[in-house]
């Protein structure tokens, strides 16, 4: 298992490097010059500008610039925000816990919906429950998160007045009261993301379970007299989870996309809304940093999926 883990970790490094190359290429190809402002300033003669460029390594060949950029990124020197003059890594670290909390809880919600519904529907294929669940799942993942968010605000905040629709970071309450207020304001963003993912996963779980349930080892387990519930849980679901984990890992980039949208709708102060404000304010270092963090998170979750693989199917880790 340990050997398998190290191998997976080593495979993750080239993909991170690949992502960094893509990111750098996009930036290098982008038009615009950071010294544009100096060019229009008559007080700065052209040779001073050229000297400045040379001293910052702007005229070096592309691969040298890439390595300089990569080493400083690895050293944690991510530059300063143009707008607030705060180091980018600090800015991101401030916002990251909120995003992780919202995404994490919503994924748990999605699992709590998808697993029972998908398994129950697959053990009774083409029953009334299956058909209803299937149709609802289709509708669920066809509703874009930005529209469900607005619908929820319309229903629960404006029409019924139950929930606040603006996320506040500083709640002036302590103890249980704080948790209550926090739950009230986080429930809508979490449900928007969770329902969308849950709908998509329900279909994956259903088709994976349907594939496994016909296999011979399940019939054997039944023939040995093991109870139906135990057969489903131990012999079917565990094996059906293997393809589901792949699909869930493939969905991770979409999950982060959905998180950006929900954070923007509900004004959740997370990394996603930081990205949007940075783009609207032309704050390049922050945009770069956030994009790279999202890329790292996706690679990290792919690693988690690999570990889950090894646990679900021990044959994989011995290969």
């Amino acid at each position, binding site marked *: 298992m340990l050997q398998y883990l190290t191998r997976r970790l080593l495979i993750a490094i080239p993909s991170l490097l690949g992502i960094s190359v*893509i990111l750098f290429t996009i930036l290098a190809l982008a038009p615009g010059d950071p010294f544009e402002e100096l060019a229009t300033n008559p007080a700065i003669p052209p040779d001073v500008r050229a000297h400045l460029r040379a001293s910052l390594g702007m005229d070096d060949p592309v691969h040298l610039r890439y390595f300089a950029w990569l080493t400083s990124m690895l050293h944690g020197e991510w530059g300063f925000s143009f707008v607030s003059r705060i180091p980018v890594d600090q800015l991101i670290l401030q916002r990251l816990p909120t995003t992780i909390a919202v995404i994490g809880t919503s994924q748990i919600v999605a699992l709590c919906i998808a697993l029972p519904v998908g398994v129950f529907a697959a053990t009774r294929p083409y029953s009334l429950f299956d058909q209803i669940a299937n149709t609802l799942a289709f509708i669920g993942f*066809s509703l874009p998160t930005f529209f469900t968010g607005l619908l929820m605000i*319309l229903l629960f905040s404006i029409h019924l007045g139950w929930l606040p629709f603006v996320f506040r970071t500083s709640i002036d309450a302590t103890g249980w009261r704080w948790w209550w207020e926090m739950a009230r304001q986080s429930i809508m963003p979490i449900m928007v993301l969770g329902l969308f993912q849950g709908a998509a996963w329900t279909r994956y779980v259903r088709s994976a379970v349907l594939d496994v349930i016909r296999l011979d080892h399940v019939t054997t387990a039944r023939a040995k007299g093991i109870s139906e519930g135990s057969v489903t849980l131990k012999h079917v679901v565990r094996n059906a989870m293997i393809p589901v984990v792949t699909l869930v890992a493939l969905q991770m980039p979409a999950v982060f996309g959905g998180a950006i949208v929900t954070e923007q709708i509900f004004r959740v102060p997370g990394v996603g809304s930081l990205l949007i404000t940075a*783009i609207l304010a032309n704050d390049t270092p922050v945009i770069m940093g956030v994009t790279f963090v999202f890329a790292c998170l*996706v690679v990290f979750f792919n690693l988690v999926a690999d570990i889950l693989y090894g646990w679900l199917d021990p044959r994989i880790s011995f290969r």
Partner: protein
Amino acid sequence: MAGSIPASASAEPVRRPHVGPWKEAWRRFRKHRLAVVSAAVLLLLILGVLLGPLFWTLPIDEIDFAATLQGPTLAHPLGTDDLGQDLLARVLYGGRISLAVGFTAMLVAVGLGILVGSTAGMAGGRTDAGLMWLTDLFLSLPQLPLLLLIIYLFRASLTEVVGTELGVFILVVSVIGAFNWMPVARLVRAQFLSLREKEFVEAARALGASRRRLVLRHILPNALGPVIVAATIDIAAAIIAESTLSFLGLGFPPDIPTWGRLLFDAKDNLDFAPHWALAPGIAIFLTVVSINFVGDGLRDALDPRRVL
């Protein structure tokens, strides 16, 4: 073959009329009731968006401060926005853009996917491994942040060259296409790997067919079923991606009312003008859900192994 000889002379083989593959697919498609209904809804939406502006001739940008934020009335069946502009005209216009972006981005994605997938599937070896590594890399890229980054960086210079509307259109379509080709590439590669070993391909090769002819005439047409399904789903994904960009205020400029842009404008007036957000939102939802159902129906229809 011995097994096909009827056991007795009285058991005449049932002679079924010859059915072509497309007719057979249509017969199977019709069995998926929701898919048929969705196809009708989709057709209606496309026709409405294409022909609607011919009948509903109110301009999309006529400002009328006497009629701001009105609910649905006879003069404005979907109401008006904060400048008194007619929402029906704007939704119809936005639908043209959203659907055009969806179809074109799908074509870009499927074209790229077929190119990469067939190259990898035919070449094998190191080319295959390299292309699949690239595919996996693209699959693990955070798409929305990169989409936003690219549009932020390149919008200004491209709109200078070809004009605002066309510039943003080209940018959005190519970027969405460039981030959606991976599933198609994987599908095509898998199909190629199994098809190129089949007897009929062997036979064509033995008869001296060129590599080009093998791919275009024998392998690709047989690999097309799953690709058509993936392409259908891709249209829905592209429409959602474009609407997301516009909803974040970073897609088309404000004077071009795409569905996502209408939602973006409407979201700050949700408490006193909910109709403004509902019309484009329901339009996006109906389009996406019907495309997804049609894709599901096509999946049943185009999979010959599935018994229906």
